[in-house]
């Protein structure tokens, strides 16, 4: 497809540091329109740090991150809001607002950023919740839901404004295999249906193969990318022992 070739996220020479502890050094990669892109790697390799840079929560120490052509580290408020409208984020611990029912959680950005009437907002919210198979749970509070349901509700909220990009941080963490497999299907159907680009941070092997089209693998020692490509190909053909060990669940 032609639109596959358009990069929507361009990372060039990104260096990330906490104080003087270096996490990532000179990392460059691209994410293309409509693909399911996975960032993986062992614990502490900087996956979540990288994601927080991509969504503009952390500023790069050096280097550039362009999301839809907008430098995410810009100080121009107007541009930043525009960039943020186009991304939806599911945080690691779902980060649903505990004081609001699911309906309110999803409706919040719609009420803030659109001038739609409450009737249409209600339809949209219902539709998003149905999409993540949570129809009928509008009036439940996050604390009344199971972990898997909260993850899906987090996805519904992330999709509220129909963003062109969805960032999912460890969506499979703490889910049982069946729930995780359901989430695989959900993520794929949202991706193919809505066409949103997906950037997923995970280390769940089964889901990486089920969902991932292209992966980058980060490494703690290398402080950067040690492998990039289709996960199935990487597992078969990579010569790097770190990559082979990861994909085959072996210790070094």
């Amino acid at each position, binding site marked *: 497809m032609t639109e596959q070739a358009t990069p929507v996220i361009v990372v060039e020479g990104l260096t990330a540091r906490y104080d003087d502890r270096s996490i990532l050094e000179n990392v460059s990669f691209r994410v293309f329109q409509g693909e399911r892109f996975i960032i993986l790697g062992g614990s502490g390799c900087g996956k979540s740090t990288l994601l927080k840079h991509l969504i503009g929560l952390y500023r790069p120490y050096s280097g550039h991150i362009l999301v839809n052509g907008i430098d995410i580290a810009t100080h121009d408020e107007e541009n930043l809001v525009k960039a943020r409208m186009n991304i939806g984020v599911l945080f690691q611990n779902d980060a649903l607002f*505990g004081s609001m029912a699911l309906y309110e959680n999803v409706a919040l950005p719609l009420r803030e950023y*659109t001038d739609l009437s409450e009737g249409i907002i209600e*339809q*949209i919210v219902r*539709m998003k919740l*149905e999409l993540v198979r949570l*129809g009928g749970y*509008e009036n439940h509070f996050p*604390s009344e839901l199971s972990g898997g349901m909260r993850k899906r509700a987090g996805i519904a909220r992330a999709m509220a404004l129909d963003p062109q990009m969805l960032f999912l941080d460890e969506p499979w963490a703490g889910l049982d295999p069946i729930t995780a497999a359901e989430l695989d299907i959900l993520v794929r159907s949202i991706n193919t249906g*809505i066409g949103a680009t997906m950037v997923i941070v995970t280390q769940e092997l089964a889901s990486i193969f089920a969902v991932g089209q292209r992966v980058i693998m980060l490494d703690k020692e290398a402080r950067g990318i040690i492998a990039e490509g289709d996960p199935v190909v990487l597992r078969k053909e990579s010569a790097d022992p770190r990559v082979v060990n990861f994909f085959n669940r072996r210790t070094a």
Partner: protein
Amino acid sequence: MMKSEKRKDYTLEIRGPEGGDILLVITGRIVLSNLHQVTDDLRTIPAEVAPSSLTVDLTGLDYLDSSGALALLHLKHEAEARSVPFEFIGMNSRVKGIMDLLHTVTVGAASAAPERKPAGLIEQVGEAGMKVAQDFVTLMSFTGALVTTLLYSAAHPRSVRWDDVLRNMKQVGVDGFPIVTLISVLLGLIMAFMSSLQLKQFGANIYVASLVSIAMVKELGPIMTAILVAGRSGSAFAAEIGTMVVNDEVNALVTMGFDPLRFLVVPKIIAAVVVVPLLTLYADAFAILGSLVVGVLGLDLTVYTYMQQIRITIDNYDVMTGFIKSLFFAFLVGGIGCHRGFQVRGGPESVGKATTSAVVSAIFLIILADSIFAIVLHYLERK
């Protein structure tokens, strides 16, 4: 192209005779940002044009998001409700994908969960009453458990986490010095000043010393200190324990074989009970110091006569009752703070409620206990 125009980045074209077979050609983008307009435009079509059949041509559609697809499906539902044959044509793979996705969901289905209706007056009163009663029961059982745990700790001093006691003593006591100092000095100053205005008229200047010292040592010192500690530390206890409950840390303690009461509550209570009476004496002293300033500068009393008057007025019994009162207050403030912390259920907002409730309940209990003390001490004194 219509795209250059910002307000309207889509077009709707109706082809065909009114009341006949209508072809609706949609081009451009149907997205969340123009959905408001699109729904307005679409809503009128089935009713006003009254087509005998409706075909929607989406060939020229550049971009469609899920909210836009919802609007188109809504049009379809509306047409079908009027038994008008309806068809989408010219869907590209992207548009088809999104339509198929939405077809899997039942849009507009009624919510299965019952709406949470606000309860009626009688129900609310009943619920509030039940809550108070239940609260009293849990508070009593908590108090019972706390007392037995404290007795156990007294019998087994080695089981107490003394490091934690010290840390809490610092937090309740030392860190509270600045605010207690400030408030007690000012309180002494104000009381002395206000009373001096009245007493001066009778030449009873010296009784300012008596008034301030009796009021502070017997009543205001213990109460004020306890309320300050409730605001500073009772709330902190509730928030700390509440957050631990939310994060399953308390459950972790239980499974590791620790008694949460012994592990979390006992050090806090010991720290409060040790520190608050001392803090109260400190507050008494500083209030008297504040009033001394007014006495010396405003009433031409000497420091010696002022202090002498206080010595005559206040005896050890008064100081001791104040001391014992503050000991009880400390127990109440620490206990209710921890209790509210354990009552946290659910998420962060519940921690906030517990913290508020800890302070409010503590103040209520302080005043209640003080009234009981007033009556009991009155009858004790008469003997």
